[in-house]
């Protein structure tokens, strides 16, 4: 314990005495601070105190010194722990207070205290030195807490929980608090609850006129209806695809898999545009059915139907990714047990396999539901007059009457809906155990599907797959025609203008999309592993550890997913534009936004996968002398292969395709692909938008294949064996 404390104290001391205390103009990664550690331009806290009389930085350093003294003193474990907790709490308190007290240009609070001091000119945001000091206080705190607890308390686990809580606090709660405060703003700029409640419960939001009377429903009602339908639809489709992929000998499985993954890697708006070109009033299908069957050309696509269709196309893959892990995870012996009890394949499926997939079904539904609530691209393109909360929020912020307060209230409505769905899911799953992968090796075969169910799956999945395929053909086709939907002559012009290169005088990337393309790939490849790591570690803590406030902790990690991207974007600007944490205009803010927005998917997937791993595997590892970290690394992580892959792919892809949060966070230096595409769509340059999207889709496909190769498949049974009913029948006949 003393050694670990000393290590972290030294870490903090390095941050405080050697590294620049303030955030740097060029950014940390420019490493300009390295060649000028002594340069007064990049002073450490120590230098600031000594040379520039920034006396307010003294208290944290004093706390750090107190920490050093504490570990020198001859003290018992409990005493030292208490000392460490006190030192670290005080230290971080002082850092935070000085950060908020002295703003960028002037002091904000304690004005009389700071008057006339060097604080009068303000200070920039916290830099790498400050972050190291805060981290050192955080881990001293967790070491202290671990020291106070007895028995199985594990420094790694407590440190992990502390890290996650701190990160979620800073990057979820802190910005969201900014928006919530805005929700309670009154018309005159003050704060009060009465306007909030009248707006929250207003008939404009919750109106039921589409059910009674002949008006339209409020966006909240529309959103709930759409989200429920989408949740159910995507879960069923996802299950169907998962069953075909794992339980049948369907020949074109690989193709099917690619098709089900395609929509997830499609930039926003593209599916909507393709649907318009197929089913819009001037769409291909509409024209044909008019020419062939004289079916009236109508605008049926615009409204609920179109949004629902495009959401099904967009979100089925997420359900599929969740379901496939779960379907694969159902222990064959359970199904075999059922079959030996004279259950038919159908009975086995409905009474054994399906209930065992309950966590997967619940998670898939929850994801579909929340995705649909937060989706903003599809309703924007296809919604017509069917208004949903996400678009209402967006236009409350950017519309002709910009009203952030109204947006915040609508955001609260959306949040309420998500929380309700989350609680409903918890209630439905209950406290049952769904562990089926135990340490006892399983060599059985997963039950095949009975032929009725198999054909039902095929009947649903194949037309859907064909439909998806057509939509994608339309997209690729669209990128090669001059004027999509009007002049269909072949051209390469869209690709040349976006991704053109010139070779004369060296390779030059002259296409207009290169900048945003490279930035996007960089940011997505940094964000993806961090997101997956954060998500799965959180899942590990949630599934395997018991601690006070766990439910609240789980909920808080889901929060950022529940909040619409637009609100997240605005909240990040509000929270991170000024010191102490100044991140706007950097690439880091995009990475962080992606991490905390997409982490919940890693968490859900990780929880679903981990609740199928028997706890005795962890315990075996621990009793064999491994610590929690080794156990996590060598036992749990390898068994979570599919979940890790899913989390990596999902976060990578989401970083590339998400738009609503990004719109407010992209900066001149860090522009993202989606924001570029949206601009093109707005200007009707569909060809360019589609060509860019096609390139992105291909990039993501390549990345996914690469990831699949790297992470590999989980090797539990030597190969996936699916009972082959035909073979069996043949054997039986041969015996007769």
């Amino acid at each position, binding site marked *: 314990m003393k050694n670990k404390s000393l290590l972290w104290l030294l870490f903090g001391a390095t941050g405080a005495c050697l590294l620049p205390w303030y955030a740097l103009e060029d950014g940390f990664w420019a490493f*300009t601070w390295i*060649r000028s550690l002594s340069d007064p331009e990049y002073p450490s806290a120590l230098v600031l105190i000594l040379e520039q009389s920034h006396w307010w930085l003294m208290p944290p350093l004093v706390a750090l010194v107190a920490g050093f003294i504490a570990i020198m003193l001859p003290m018992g474990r409990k005493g030292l722990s208490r000392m460490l907790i006190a030192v670290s709490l005080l230290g971080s308190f002082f850092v935070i207070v000085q950060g908020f007290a002295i703003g*960028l240009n002037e002091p904000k609070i304690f004005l009389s205290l700071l008057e006339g001091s060097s604080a009068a000119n303000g200070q920039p945001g916290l830099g790498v030195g400050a972050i190291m000091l805060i981290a050192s206080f955080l881990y001293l705190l967790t070491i202290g807490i671990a020291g106070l607890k007895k028995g199985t308390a594990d420094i790694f686990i407590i440190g992990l929980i502390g890290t996650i809580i701190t990160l979620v606090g800073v990057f979820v709660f802190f910005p969201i608090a900014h928006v919530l405060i805005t929700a309670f703003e009154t018309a005159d700029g003050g704060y009060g609850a009465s306007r909030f409640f009248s707006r929250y419960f207003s008939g404009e939001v919750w109106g039921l006129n589409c059910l009674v009377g002949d*008006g*339209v429903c409020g966006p909240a009602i529309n959103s709930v209806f759409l989200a429920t339908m989408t949740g159910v639809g995507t879960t069923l489709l996802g299950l169907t695809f998962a069953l075909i992929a794992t339980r049948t000998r369907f020949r074109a499985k690989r193709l099917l898999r690619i098709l089900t993954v395609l929509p997830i890697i499609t930039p926003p708006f593209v599916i909507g545009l393709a649907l*318009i070109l197929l089913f*819009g*009033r*001037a769409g291909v299908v509409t024209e044909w059915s008019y020419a062939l069957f004289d079916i009236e050309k109508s*605008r049926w696509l*615009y409204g609920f139907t179109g949004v629902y269709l495009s959401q099904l196309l967009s979100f089925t893959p997420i359900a599929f990714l969740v379901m496939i892990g779960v379907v694969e995870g159902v222990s064959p012996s359970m199904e075999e047990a059922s079959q030996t009890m004279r259950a038919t394949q159908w009975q086995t499926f409905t009474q054994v396999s399906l209930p065992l997939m309950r966590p997967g079904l619940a998670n898939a539904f929850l994801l579909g539901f929340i995705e649909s609530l937060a989706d903003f691209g599809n309703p*924007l393109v296809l*919604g*017509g*007059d069917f208004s949903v909360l996400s*678009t209402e929020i967006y*236009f409350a*912020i*950017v*519309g*002709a*009457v*910009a009203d*952030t307060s109204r947006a915040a209230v609508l955001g609260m409505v959306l949040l309420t809906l998500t929380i309700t769905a989350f609680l409903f899911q918890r209630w439905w799953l209950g406290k049952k155990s769904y562990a089926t992968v135990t340490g006892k090796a399983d060599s059985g075969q997963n039950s095949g599907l009975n032929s009725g169910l198999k054909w039902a799956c095929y009947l649903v999945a194949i037309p859907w797959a064909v439909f998806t395929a057509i939509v994608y053909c339309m997209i690729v086709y669209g990128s090669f025609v*001059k*004027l999509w*939907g*009007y*002049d269909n002559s072949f051209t390469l012009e869209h690709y040349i203008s976006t991704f053109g290169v010139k070779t004369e005088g060296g390779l030059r990337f002259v296409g*207009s999309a290169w900048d945003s393309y490279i930035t996007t790939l960089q940011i997505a490849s940094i964000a993806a592993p961090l997101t997956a790591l954060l998500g799965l570690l959180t899942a590990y803590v949630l599934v395997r550890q018991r601690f006070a406030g766990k439910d609240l902790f789980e909920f808080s990690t889901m929060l950022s997913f529940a909040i619409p991207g637009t609100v997240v974007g*605005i909240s990040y*600007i*509000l929270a991170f*534009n*000024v010191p102490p944490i*100044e991140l*706007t*205009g950097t690439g880091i803010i995009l990475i962080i936004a992606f991490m905390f927005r997409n982490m919940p998917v890693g968490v859900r997937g990780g929880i679903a996968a981990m609740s199928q791993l028997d706890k005795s595997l962890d315990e075996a590892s621990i009793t064999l002398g491994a610590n929690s970290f080794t156990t996590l690394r060598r036992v749990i992580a390898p068994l979570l292969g599919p979940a890790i892959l899913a989390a990596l792919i999902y976060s990578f892809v989401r970083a590339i395709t998400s738009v609503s949060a990004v*719109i*407010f966070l*992209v*900066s*001149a*230096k860090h*522009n993202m692909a989606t*924001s*570029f595409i949206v*601009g*093109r769509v*707005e*200007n*009707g*340059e569909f060809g360019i938008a589609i060509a860019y999207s096609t390139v992105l889709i291909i990039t993501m496909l390549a990345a996914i294949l690469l990831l699949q190769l790297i992470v590999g498949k989980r090797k539990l049974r030597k190969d996936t064996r699916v009972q082959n009913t035909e073979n069996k029948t043949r054997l039986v006949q041969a015996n007769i």
Partner: protein
Amino acid sequence: MKKRTALGITLFGLAVHSQAVFAAEELNVVCSAEQSWCDLMVAGFEEQTGVEVAMVRKSTGEALAQVRAESKNPKIDVWWGGTGDPHLIAASEGLTQASGVDTTDLLGWSVNLSNISDGKTVGIYAGALGLAYNSELLSEKNMKAPACWKDLVDVQYAGEIQVANPNSSGTAYTELATFVQLFGEDEAFSLLADIGKNVNQYTKSGSAPSKAAGRGETAISIGFMHDMVKLASSGFPLVIVAPCEGTGYEVGAVSIIDKAKNLESAKKWVQYSLDPATQSRSVEVGAYQVPSNSKSTVAPESPDLATIKLIDYDFATYGSTDTRERLLSRWDADVKNAPKN
């Protein structure tokens, strides 16, 4: 020997240091015009001044939201392009600062904008509001071509007109304000409600209706004529109509953000964007708006503002928050959910 090494290191250090100082002239631009136009502006400006420009394209609403959110510590120096109303709002909220640019060569509507805003925003282009119809669809359905705003009331256009929602679109708000200025408030709203009977959808975005008309998703659209010209010149069967009663217009603007970190470069940008040579190039990227400098050349395809009956659009009144909120809430009550034909 030692001395020489030390000298070398010092010189190298100086070189690195000075480089860091002199390369610092840069400019952050948020651009609310079309991407290709933004790209053209940036390339030209960099070439002419040597200032390094970082540019991001955002719609006017998004740009305003960002400027507002970042007001305490702006990351943007200049906001270029996009309809004038949000620029005026930003000026009245103190989010932008006067550029002190010379306006002598500018056309009246541009100077007007500058005067209303105490020089905080200047007009760079203008575009008139108009109608467009899909000629193929119209003949297929045997509908007469509309010539005036009032023609749109005709029941033959039932379900064939598309226009944006003024709550979300600046274009549609310009239309609403134009109607009020043309016909007086009460008549304007009853006319809008009557036209509303034929509207198939109030879109979120102002440019969406014309695109839909171009592709044949709707027969008639209301929007800015330069957008229509661009669609028509790229090949869509759109016919553009300047309504007989007269019409309003938008003025695209440029503003320098308050507390801009690169104020000098920002001023250069404003100067550059009003330069006739710059403005005359806009047609290269299919921007058919009318430029604000009287010495700029106007593209032949551009709607000729001289032949269009333009109203004397009152930007000060209709750009004010009070008028805006009153008109929009009346629109919500009278027009939005009007029964359809």
